[in-house]
């Protein structure tokens, strides 16, 4: 077990909030300068996905493909087959939903350097409602052979995930969010691809979270500690390959595991963790996720609260799990 990474002073001061998509735009600009072979594609959402700045800086390496996501992924695959590292972006709903087949057939089968970086994932896209709240993207991406999947917890980690994606030889999916979310990590945090980061030690239960629910999990752990429950908090920002060792350790040390994600439980983080737990070290589990349901319009915070994915909801679920563990 490595020492917990450096965290931002999340609860000692007003947390700073930045959307992970902003970090994506900045990382692309950095890659544009350092990597001549990086190209970027978008499907008429470059202002929202934050690829526009790259387009301005490197117009000859930016391809706006219009509202045609399937074609965008195919073109990205063709570019990658000629030696380019192609970042392709749209909203998660369209990038992985409309273009699933192209990602499987044209990117993952030939194992090409296409990085699908999708923004506006999950419930926190908010007011746009269920048509735009992509809750199945991690499921769709993690089941495809050759695809690797990252879900950064905040903008500090997101920037490093994008740089990691550029280094990986093969297809990558990075799930990014629309809304500004609390900064979890200090600037000197070192993301390690394929490794879970334990953000808080504890042995009564482990909360394994991804994306925007990581900060809520940290807040929930604070609340639980006040009631004498010590929760380990694990940031699972690489969903595939999954850090199974970290999960086994958590199961052995804590005897109960709760997962948290703004995503369907079917096929998502919860499923991935449950598979590792069931195969290696069965313990009581609870999945905080969307339970085979669509979302609705509302603010991101309202939606997270409504579906039990904010700090209060996670605290309540953790207490239920602790009771079950004790029974």
């Amino acid at each position, binding site marked *: 077990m490595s020492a917990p990474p450096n965290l931002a002073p999340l609860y000692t001061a007003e947390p700073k909030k930045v959307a992970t998509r902003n970090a994506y735009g900045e990382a692309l600009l950095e890659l544009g300068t350092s990597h001549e072979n990086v*190209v970027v594609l978008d499907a008429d959402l470059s202002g929202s996905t934050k690829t526009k700045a790259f387009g301005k800086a490197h117009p*000859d*390496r930016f*391809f706006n*493909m*219009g509202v*045609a996501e*399937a*074609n*965008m*992924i*195919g*073109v*990205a*695959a*063709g*570019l*990658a*087959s*000629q*030696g*380019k590292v*192609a970042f392709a972006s749209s909203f998660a709903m369209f990038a992985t939903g409309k273009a699933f*087949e*192209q990602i499987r*057939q*044209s990117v993952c*089968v*030939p194992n090409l350097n296409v990085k699908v970086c999708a923004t506006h994932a999950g419930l926190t896209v908010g007011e746009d409602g269920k048509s735009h709240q992509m809750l199945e993207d991690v499921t769709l991406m993690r089941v495809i052979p050759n695809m690797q999947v990252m879900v950064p917890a905040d903008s500090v980690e997101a920037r490093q995930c994008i740089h990691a994606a550029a280094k990986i030889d093969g297809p990558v999916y990075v799930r990014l969010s629309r809304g500004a979310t609390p900064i979890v990590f200090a600037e000197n945090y070192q993301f390690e691809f394929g490794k879970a980061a334990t953000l808080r030690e504890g042995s009564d239960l482990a909360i394994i979270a991804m994306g925007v629910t990581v900060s809520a999990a940290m807040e929930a752990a604070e609340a639980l500690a006040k009631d004498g429950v010590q929760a380990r908090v694990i940031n699972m920002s690489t969903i595939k390959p999954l850090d199974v060792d970290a999960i086994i350790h958590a199961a052995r040390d804590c005897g109960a595991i709760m997962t948290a994600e703004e995503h369907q439980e079917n096929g998502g983080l919860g499923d991935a963790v449950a598979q590792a737990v069931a195969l290696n070290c069965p313990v009581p589990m609870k999945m905080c996720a969307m339970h085979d349901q669509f979302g609705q319009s509302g603010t991101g915070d309202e939606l997270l609260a409504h579906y039990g994915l904010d700090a209060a909801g996670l605290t309540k679920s953790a207490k239920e799990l602790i009771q079950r563990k004790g029974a």
Partner: protein
Amino acid sequence: MALTQEQKSLVESAARQTRVDTIRMVHAAACGHPGGPLGMADFMATLFMQHLNLNPDNRHDAKRDRFVLGNGHTCAGYYSLLSQKGLIPREDLLRFRKMGADLQGHPHRNHDLGIDFSTGSLGNSLSVSLGMALAAKHNGWDSRIYSASSDGESQEGQIWEAATAAAHYGASNLTVLVDFNNVQIDGYMRDVMDVRDLREKYEAFGWHAVDVDGHDVEAVDAALVAAREETKRPSALICKTLIGKGVSFMENQPGWHGVAPNDEEARKALLELGVPDGELAAMVPATA
């Protein structure tokens, strides 16, 4: 420049070999798609023997021409042509579709064999070809990207997304050869889903598009030469063909889209393709 007599007979001989190989391969595999490759053989042989800059020495050269077989199910003919160009060992052809073989039922990217992309799912190929064309242009390479497609594949919406984008980006180094035989798996196109005039459609999308007799190797060659002259627009050759061409009982028969010939049918087909009687027994060993 028109084909010389020598070039013409080279292409015609390659087309005939493509048809013979197709029958033998699909027969040996006991499954696969004979009709398409027979129909495409003439324009494919023209492309591979006269235009496509691909050979065993340059197969790993990023700057060489590329070819993407959009209608991937017709790969028996494609594999035959790659074999004739020295990229696929002749003995591998009869392992087509068999367990452990490089020659998969639909093409899988393998630069050792000159296979530039994985295909099989209709609709994806033109986008990929466009990506290759954009990369070549960006790199300042003068290579050309060729793609084969079909009337059936033109029913896929993604083809028209790619057609829109290829014209928008002025991908003049991209040429698609559309096999137009009016037949798809479920029957004749007019009964299943009529795609109407593809030349007019590609033109409306901003392409240089021509209709060409897909069995007239001189006409196909001339159209490919004209495509090379384009400096602003991608080119589409709508190749009018007869599915099953060269084997009388397969011609214009939807039933031969995806069915393998039995021993007797294979021998009959090879005879019609000019294989001497004495070679038939060796070429088509009894399978059962």
